[in-house]
């Protein structure tokens, strides 16, 4: 999943990028509101982490413009402004969650998971498709009871496919959600990741989970709870 961080404090921005990248997210980060708005409008993010007090364009204005343009990407506001009216202002401007600085990284991760879960219309952190289970909180795949070991890139591709189960996803779309903008992406990166995934899944007896739609992209079967399709 791809996350945009708009935070002007360099050190905090770098820590957020480091932590979220380590957690498996593709992360883009910018230091002012104007640049943040451009990124949010031109790239499809799964989540935006937004500071309020920003140079060039403040977070509330950025959020207002984003929502006015019909952008529904979940936005998590980070701010040192902790008064009730300030939090209310942020939420009313279109934020999906509000986290007051200082905050723990674990809490931030939990809130990001909750927001992405809510965005896909699920109340559970666990997604199951075709015998494969994804635990979003533990950031782990499993087939049956045994874990499925995947590289970060494979994890990111399969996660995105399963999160969008039942929908055909183009290579470009998968790339956009799986890689941060500063990453060098080879033209066949998604294809080779899918091939590696199919091999690992086949070793566990899972065949045809990822379907190729010629000229369109890839499709994973309709989503369901693990209990339902196990």
């Amino acid at each position, binding site marked *: 999943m791809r996350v945009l961080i708009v935070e002007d404090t360099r*050190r905090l921005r770098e820590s957020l990028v480091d932590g979220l990248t380590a957690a498996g997210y593709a992360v883009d980060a910018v230091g002012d509101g104007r640049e943040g708005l451009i990124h949010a409008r031109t790239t499809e993010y799964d989540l935006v982490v937004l500071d309020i007090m920003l140079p060039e364009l403040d977070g509330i204005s950025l959020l207002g413009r984003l929502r006015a343009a019909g952008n529904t990407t979940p936005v998590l506001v980070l701010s040192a402004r902790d008064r009730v009216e300030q939090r209310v202002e942020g939420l009313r401007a279109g934020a999906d969650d509000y986290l007051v600085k200082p905050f723990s990284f674990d809490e931030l991760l939990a809130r990001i998971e909750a927001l992405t879960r809510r965005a896909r219309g699920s109340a559970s952190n666990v997604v199951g498709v075709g015998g494969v289970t994804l635990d979003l909180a533990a950031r782990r795949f499993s087939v049956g009871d045994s874990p499925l070991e995947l590289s970060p890139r494979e994890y990111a591709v399969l996660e995105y496919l399963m999160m969008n189960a039942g929908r055909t996803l183009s290579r470009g779309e998968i790339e956009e959600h799986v890689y941060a903008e500063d990453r060098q992406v080879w033209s066949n990166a998604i294809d080779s990741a899918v091939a590696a995934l199919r091999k690992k899944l086949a070793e566990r007896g899972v065949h045809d989970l990822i379907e190729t739609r010629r000229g369109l992209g890839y499709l994973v079967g309709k989503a369901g709870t693990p209990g339902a399709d196990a």
Partner: protein
Amino acid sequence: MTSIRRMLTLSLGVAIGLLFAVLAVAVFFSYRGAVRAQLDESLRTRASTFAAMVVEDREEDELAFDFEGDLRVENQGVWLRITDSHGEVLAVSDALPRVVAGETPRPGGPPAYRTIADGGDTRYRKVILNAHASVEGDDDDNRAPTAEGPPVTVEVVADASALLRDERRWRNALIAAFCVAVGVTMIAVRLVVRRGLAPVHRLTGELDRIGPATLSLDIDDHTYPAELRPIAAAVNGLLERVLAGVERERRFTDAAAHELRTPIAELTMLTGVAGRYPDEARQRRAIEEAGAIAAEMNTLLESLLLAARGRAGGKVDATTPLGPIVRTQLDKHAGLLRERSISLETEIDDAAGWRGPAGAALMILRNLVENAGEYTPEGGMIRVAVAGGVGSAGFEIENGPVDLSAADADQMFEPFWRADPARSGRRHAGLGLAIVDAFCETLGLMRRAEMTTDRTLRIRIEPTKSLTPDPI
């Protein structure tokens, strides 16, 4: 506790009560005076009449009381005693009361009046009239005492008990009326005072309703009586000042929270990420960054303490010349100014100085010069002027063009104020001008910041009651 209502009620009550008392006493004494005067006049007339009946027979050389009637009190209504100049009684009524008879009349002099008590409830009123007997041969029908006749003293006594009882009744009635009037007056005064003070209670109610959330509400002073309007207006002024203070505190708290929360958030994130994803390089970086964050927080703390110490600093009588300090500070920034093509104009009077420790003057001038150097854009200008006398210098610094508003100029000396509302960057916390403000207070200096029409920020520092000419 002093109560205006009680004080007014008591004062008005006592004043009106005293007035009633004086009126009652006046009425009583006028009534008594009139009644007594009437009685005395009647007694004196009777005495004159009796005196005219004393006749001198010159041939016999004797005095006689020429009265054929009955002298008893039952018939005359009064007692009578007539004595000659030798004290010999010429005529006397029967049963003349002893207390009345006891007094020896004194011949000569004007008529005298006495009220005599008998020891019980009876009171007598007596007139003593010194007259002259008539001389026999006068016309009997028009007889009157003449100066030729020998002197006689006529005492006429009337029982005045009824009169005195009447007086007592009047007195009691007046006292009762006075008490009732005072009572009614006190009730009326209380009601009037309460009504008069009703606007005070209304004002108190309005003030009671003012809370932290309603500080911006104005009291409508036009609805109050003229006496309370200045108070209502003063309260409105006070509320405005309180509101401004609260707003200033709020800005300070917001800014302080941001300045402190941001490094704490940085620390929390660094340690959180390093703890969750342990990696040697990440942990090393976290340790290095934590040290830098601690140093920044320490600088912030030192700046805050410096501002606080500046305010608490004592006065020193020595004078600090400003010229050398300003030149040193400008020299420190000369390279930077050249690099950024910033023009510098100076006009420095070396004799000019401030009274106070050199360290305080240095803190003020260093921060102002640093600020101007830091925030003047490339190609801009800085002007510095020092003028005035020993201990009464005016210092002025201008820099521009800068994108600040008049409101910014008003607030820039507040702790944590920053021109950038996003408060980005960790090099400055917005305490430099707060430090200037604190040391100005220490040195008894007045500071003023304003934006000129050509986007230039002008800051002027001078002694509070400076008479020095404008340095620029």
